[in-house]
């Protein structure tokens, strides 16, 4: 059984179809790249998966169950995400940011919090320990007490991943994890994605850095104008002419041939 199974997902905004009939499956523990030109609907597709947008049509199954249509329930079910434009809690410390990620995996309610029972203390301690581990895991063990907003850009991206991992996901969706990074930071990000994969967590990532995508992903899917164009191994996708055409446009002679073909087919 596939981990995630999106079938015929469609999202329309008024007259615009941002995502059209997209099928996508992710198997346990794989890294899947989602690429496509700007405006292809990649982020909208992510939003449909994570409950931030309700798809106009189509189903999304996670571990054989339909994913709920509310972001917090999606996270609880085990699908975590990061955002293209980083969305941390800027005035909380790095550690607090990650501890907030533990919210769905902890239980203390109002009475426990006010009553300060032993269970409450244990849970708080565990959350903090886990958060420290995660900060170390993403490679920044020493910044726990610094404000999220005062961290350097690359660290903010990694902190966002740490926060997502704190929700104990089975599938992690990364929206442009290397946007704005220099080559060193990109290499570190690739390592981090592999480490996440090493934990048995499947990763779907949207990315524009082709070297990053083709070097890292087990499979790559290409979205163009809201529809899935190709899906396959990096090698297949890389050499597919339709993909090259979608990114770079077509050669003039191809266009002429196409027009001729169109004329023939239309009576």
């Amino acid at each position, binding site marked *: 059984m596939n981990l995630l199974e999106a079938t015929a997902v469609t999202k329309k905004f008024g007259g615009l179809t941002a995502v059209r009939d997209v099928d996508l499956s992710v198997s346990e523990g794989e890294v899947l790249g989602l690429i*496509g030109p*700007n*405006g*292809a*609907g*990649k*982020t*909208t597709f992510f939003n449909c998966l*994570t409950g*931030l947008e309700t798809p106009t049509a189509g189903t999304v199954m996670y571990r054989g169950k339909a994913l709920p249509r*509310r*972001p*917090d329930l999606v*996270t*609880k079910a085990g699908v*975590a*995400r990061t*955002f*293209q*434009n*980083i*969305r*941390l*809690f*800027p*005035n*909380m410390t790095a550690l*607090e940011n990650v*501890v*907030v*990620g*533990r*919210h*769905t995996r*902890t239980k*203390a*309610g*109002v009475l*426990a*919090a*006010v009553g*300060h029972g032993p269970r*409450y203390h244990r*849970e*708080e301690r565990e*959350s903090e320990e886990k958060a420290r581990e995660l900060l170390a895991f993403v490679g920044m063990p020493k910044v726990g007490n610094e*404000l*999220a*907003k*005062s961290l*350097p*850009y690359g660290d*903010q991206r990694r902190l966002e991943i740490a*926060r*997502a991992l704190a*929700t104990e996901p089975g599938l992690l969706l990364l929206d442009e994890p290397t946007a*704005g990074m220099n080559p060193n930071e990109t290499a570190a990000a690739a390592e981090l994605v592999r480490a996440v994969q090493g934990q048995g967590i499947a990763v779907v990532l*949207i990315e*524009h850095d082709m070297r990053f995508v083709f070097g890292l992903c087990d499979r790559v899917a290409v*979205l163009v104008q809201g529809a899935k164009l190709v899906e396959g191994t990096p090698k297949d996708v890389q050499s597919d002419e339709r993909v090259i055409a979608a990114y770079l446009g077509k050669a003039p002679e191809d266009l002429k041939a196409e027009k001729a073909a169109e004329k023939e087919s239309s009576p």
Partner: protein
Amino acid sequence: MIYLEIARSRVRSKLGPFALPIGLLGALLLAIGCFLPWSTYAGFPGKMLNSTPGGARLYVLLLSLFAVLFLVDWPGRSKALRGTSLFALIITVLTMLFVGYAGGGLVNCGIGVFVALVGALLYVVGAQALPEDSAPAPIRNLPDRGWRTLVETLLVVGAAVSALLVFVIGLGIPTASVAEGPDRRLGGAISLNDLTNESQFLCFLLFVCAAMLGLSRIGLVASLGALTKKHSRVMVAAALMSAVVFPFTQGGDGYSLRIAASIGVFAAAAIGLNIVVGLAGLLDLGYIAFFGVGAYFAALVSGSVTSVLDVDLPFALTIVLAAAISGIFGILLGAPTLRLRGDYLAIVTLGFGEIFRITVNNLDGSAGPSLTNGPNGISNIPDLALPGGFSFGDNHTLFGVDLPFQANYYWLEVILVAVVMTAFLRLAESRIGRAWVAIREDELAAAATGINTTRLKLLAFALGATLAGAAGSINAHVVKVAAPDSFTFLESALLLAAVILGGMGTVQGALLGATVLYLLPEKLRFLQDLRLLVFGIVLVLIMRLRPEGLVPSKRRQREFREPGGGADALAAPPGRAEVST
């Protein structure tokens, strides 16, 4: 502000080398002036005639002691000196004007005030001419010796006791309302005596501000704050003891205890509102309605003859039920409206507050069911009684001190505030408090991190309402009446002002804000109709000079005082920041 800076740099460039002699001379003159008479006639209180400084003279004398900082190179000293010298000047000038006005002309001022005025001016100039501090004052620790813990503990206890002292002295300065009883507030001419007395209070207030400013700028307040955090149990015990002991210091004066009890109610409600506004970031402009629900419920089941219900529930039950019913109202209002954010939510809550007031105004039997006696409200609410026959309306004698009955209500308020504070503090640092702050910081990210934002916002709303309901039910018995005009928008706005003024997200802030906001109008009655104007100006000034509030939470301080506050401060990726797929 920029003009101030320019003026200061001019003074500095011309007088820089002479800052020390000028400032010291000024402080010396100021101190000498304090030992000379400040008025030529008897009748202005506050010991203005003899050679022992008292009242304003004492305050100015104490402020002149800060001049010692001219001699030591202490970090933060020039900021501290600038503040204290300016306040010394203001107090001197104000007292001069008061003495002159009350005596019929400035000619009636004593020689001392003029000496002090010259001294204060030199003091200010000297302070302005000091070079800018190289670094802000650090938090200082005591040397690590055997006696360290003991001294630290004593300091913490001392802090709590001095807070009590400031409160007692401030409350104890007789003002018109105290001297002539609560009926004075109904109007009447201001006597000379009122003016002179209340000028004392004003000077005291300015002195406290100046001393706090000076001490905080040389880092002593922050150091003491760190100590209170380190010995938090001692601090809590000392603060609680101070609060409990307070009635014994009042010499049987019921009025001041009543004011203190009202401050307690106000503070408890403000802390409840702080959950909603300070932690969860939901702007609630109709909060007083929840307070009103609690008050009306307590009034209805109090056994009052004017209540339409002929029931008299035991008080413990009333308080719990009032809190629960207010909480239910909170959920009823919150469930449909919490999808709204910011301004929209504020408008809806504002509307709810008005609906509540108008509804209770009309439930008098003629336009609807008879429940609240309309505009007259439910009055003659009896005193509380405990099952053992203890009535809150009786005077008692404890440890040989006669205590007016108001002390009973005061202690009840202390318990309420303690409970509300504990709830707030523990919630704020729990998983739920963190989730609230996350929602305030970025609601969408909070949802994507697994926080059920709707439920948590509703929880904040309901908890705030519950605390307000409990406070309201007690207040109904303190003021003995529940009437619609106590629950106007102005009250909601005042509570919100207390939270913002004190510092969002902290209990100490809400407590301080509530105290200041309740006490100022109560004590500045000599201004009569100008009262609200002055009050408004004070609020504007505080928000201009200290936008994060008097006792801000660390988080809020960061937002205002560190480069790039708010969510937009997150680094935007260079280059293709706005690319969206």
